[in-house]
């Protein structure tokens, strides 16, 4: 069936780069792998008929968060690692991954999937109408949350140290 084929393709597009993200020793490569994973996830949302979430995924995650991730990598100052460091974290990482998988598995198996087999409809207009009528106040709170995030980001990154030769050099620190 064509639908299954599309799903398998989208799942592969999500999972294969995800493995790449985890296995890559280069943080920039991992960031670029995230591009494909997030895109595949957007495709999966669209496949399930969640059109608004698919658009939000494309715009916010691929358009915004990924840029932020790459900027974060640019700030990390970690030279490309060739050694085998990181293996000592296998045990806690495995425990955490197994716990996450357990929660996901329990959630997936507890959902009554047969109840949601109605054909997909466009949801964006309905979301818009709901925002304008029943959810006006939550909608306005969102802007306050965004305002708080913006001011918080500005405060956290504001330079408190006085300008001087030592601090000026700090900005352009180079790899050893």
């Amino acid at each position: 069936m064509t639908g299954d084929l599309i799903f398998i393709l989208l799942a592969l597009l999500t999972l294969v780069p995800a493995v790449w993200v985890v296995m890559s020793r280069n943080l920039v490569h991992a960031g670029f792998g995230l591009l494909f994973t997030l895109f595949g996830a957007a495709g999966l949302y669209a496949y399930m008929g969640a059109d608004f979430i698919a658009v939000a995924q494309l715009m916010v995650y691929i358009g915004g968060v990924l840029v932020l991730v790459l900027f974060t990598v640019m700030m990390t100052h970690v030279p490309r690692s060739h050694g085998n460091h990181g293996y000592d974290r296998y045990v806690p990482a495995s425990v955490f991954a197994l716990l996450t998988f357990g929660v996901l598995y329990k959630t997936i198996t507890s959902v009554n999937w047969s109840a949601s087999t109605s054909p997909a409809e466009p949801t964006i207009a309905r979301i818009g109408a709901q925002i304008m009528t029943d959810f006006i106040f939550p909608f306005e709170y969102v802007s306050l949350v965004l305002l708080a995030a913006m001011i918080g980001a500005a405060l956290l990154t504001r330079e408190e140290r006085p300008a001087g030769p030592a601090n000026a050099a700090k900005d352009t620190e180079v790899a050893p």
Partner: protein
Amino acid sequence: MSMTSPLGTVATGLQAHYATVFVFILVGFVFAGIALGVAKLLRPSNPSPAKQSTYECGEVPIGSSWVRFNVRFYLVALFFIVFDVEVIFLYPWAVVFKQLFPVPGMGAIVFWEMIIFLAILALGLAYVWVKGDLDWVKKLAQRTAMTPAPAAAAEEEVPAS
């Protein structure tokens, strides 16, 4: 719509739209793939150490290109995400605006609700603007005035060394 045929009888209206998107993405990949593939077939390949070194405007690169960038890049990205999320909320509003605006009693709400939403975020933008968090050049100019020699080097965000 001829795009619905690959999906057969399961194609609803929404799926037909996605088929269009899918074909669009496919054409994009094929276009880029052909352009890059033909170039790879045609171009000669004889790499040398000089060719493969990092381009540094003719200079010989010194050290790693992996430097710590200024935190201001991160700040700008954060501001960008805030307004990115704002656009996501504008989108469903824009879709229904034309339908809801003429409805009696709704028009003013629909209009002013979004104006308030935008105004609150504009307040944040005004705050970071006034406080100088958006200023990129001003801080560097101050630094240059105080400490001429080292600060001049700091103006380059990606130094060669």
